[in-house]
């Protein structure tokens, strides 16, 4: 018997949307923690920066690695956005239908999806700005350089909006991924779902608090540090030759 030809595209699109989302969410889980190294000390944040610039592997700083990472994450970000936009309400009528439905039902998970649409839409713009700056100015990351960007280059408000939207989007997304594919659903899905939901909400709260503290610290340094010698951080223990 002849095997039926099937159109594999819808399966691939659905899987790719989930897979790109998973990669981005896991990236964010790490990103915000690494960036919170500033809460430990300026020196700690500097060392994390050096690590990502490959200093501990090659003995020299290669900010190009950051550019490469930003480009890679940026590409996945664009792919994810392109796939996810298929699900957006495409007209005012659709928008009205889904909002009225959600309000009438007072249904939390439908509401969570609306949050995904709104935060996703926000990140089309603010996420792009952030990614492009990381791509174009990879060497300007560090306890002072980042603080200067937050305050002097007025990125603080954008980072604030980005923090709120990306953390909500990432953890709601992870929660929804688990339900969508049946990950860890166990025998009683009502129970596992309730647990995942509590975990999701706690992680959102935790990451927003940690993120806000980090942003606060960068802002504080930005206002109080004397940038007359430039934005380079000078470590007392590690002397790095600049690789140009």
């Amino acid at each position, binding site marked *: 018997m002849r*095997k*039926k030809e*099937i*159109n*594999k595209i*819808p*399966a*691939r*699109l*659905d*899987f790719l949307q989930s897979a790109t989302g998973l990669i981005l969410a896991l990236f964010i889980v790490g990103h915000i923690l690494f960036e919170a190294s500033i809460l430990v000390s300026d020196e700690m944040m500097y060392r994390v920066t050096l690590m990502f610039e490959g200093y501990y592997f090659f003995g020299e700083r290669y900010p190009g690695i950051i550019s490469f990472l930003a480009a890679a994450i940026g590409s996945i970000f664009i792919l994810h956005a392109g796939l996810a936009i*298929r*699900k957006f*309400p495409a007209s005012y009528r*659709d928008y009205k*239908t*889904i909002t009225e*439905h*959600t309000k*009438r*039902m*007072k*249904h939390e*998970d*439908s509401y969570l*999806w609306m949050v995904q649409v709104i935060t996703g839409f926000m990140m089309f713009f603010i996420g792009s700005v952030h990614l492009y700056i990381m791509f174009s100015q990879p060497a300007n990351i560090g306890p002072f350089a980042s603080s200067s960007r937050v305050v002097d280059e007025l990125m603080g408000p954008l980072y604030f909006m980005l923090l709120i939207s990306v953390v909500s989007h990432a953890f709601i997304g992870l929660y*929804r991924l688990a*339900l*969508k*594919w*049946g990950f860890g*659903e166990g025998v009683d*899905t009502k129970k596992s*779902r309730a647990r995942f939901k509590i975990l999701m909400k706690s992680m959102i709260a935790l990451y927003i608090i940690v993120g806000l503290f980090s942003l606060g610290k960068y802002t504080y340094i930005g206002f109080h540090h004397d940038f007359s010698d430039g934005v380079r951080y000078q470590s007392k223990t590690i002397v790095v030759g600049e690789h140009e």
Partner: protein
Amino acid sequence: MSEEKNRVLTISILRFDPHDSDDFPHMESYEVEEAPGMTLFVVLNEIREHHDNSLKFDFVCRAGICGSCSMLVNGKPTLACRTLTKKLDAHITLAPLPLFELIGDLSIYTGKWMRGLNERLETWIHDKSNELNVDALEERMEPALADEIYELDRCVECGCCVAGCGTIQMRPDFVGAVGLNKVARYHLDPRDKREDEEYYEMIGNEDGVFGCMTLLGCEDVCPKDLPLQSKIAYMRRMMLKTSLKN
């Protein structure tokens, strides 16, 4: 019995007769004295008996088995016969389920929609190789599998999952949880000889399982507590697997 005074319930009902060209959708309210163990089934009969005999609504079994009395109770789809008034506030709003053809007031034509769905998904055992032989013994099945299939067969086609689904409100061609649950039921059944590719043909698209946005309204409103979340995830995995197979 207790001397406490019973609550007086205010029941607001969205009324409309689509066959009367002069009529328009409007709310009408009725006051009914609450009684112990009262369900919305009792309330609606009380209204029809004492207030307004033109009120249209559907009931058959009044025990949550026939699936006829599905309606929006305070905005949430559920079966009226299984809804106790004591669990609700004194002011209750009733409206017909959206998406289905309206017969009048709370009465909707779910049967027509469900028939279309069943024809679209061919929800019956497909076995091309064997002629039906009523004298032969049926193939044996593991009890656990039989239980699993039976669990999914408990669907009464009340339409609550359809009305609770945000996806289908926006995209009416979406197959809905009732459809995906039925497909999962036949996919599990070893007597159904349809190949995975044939299932993929039916639901491996954006009107099928890949259109589901996992809002889980279906799971949360199903009056029969069917494992919809789990079975939609199962079909999603199966259909992805099929797409990777060849």
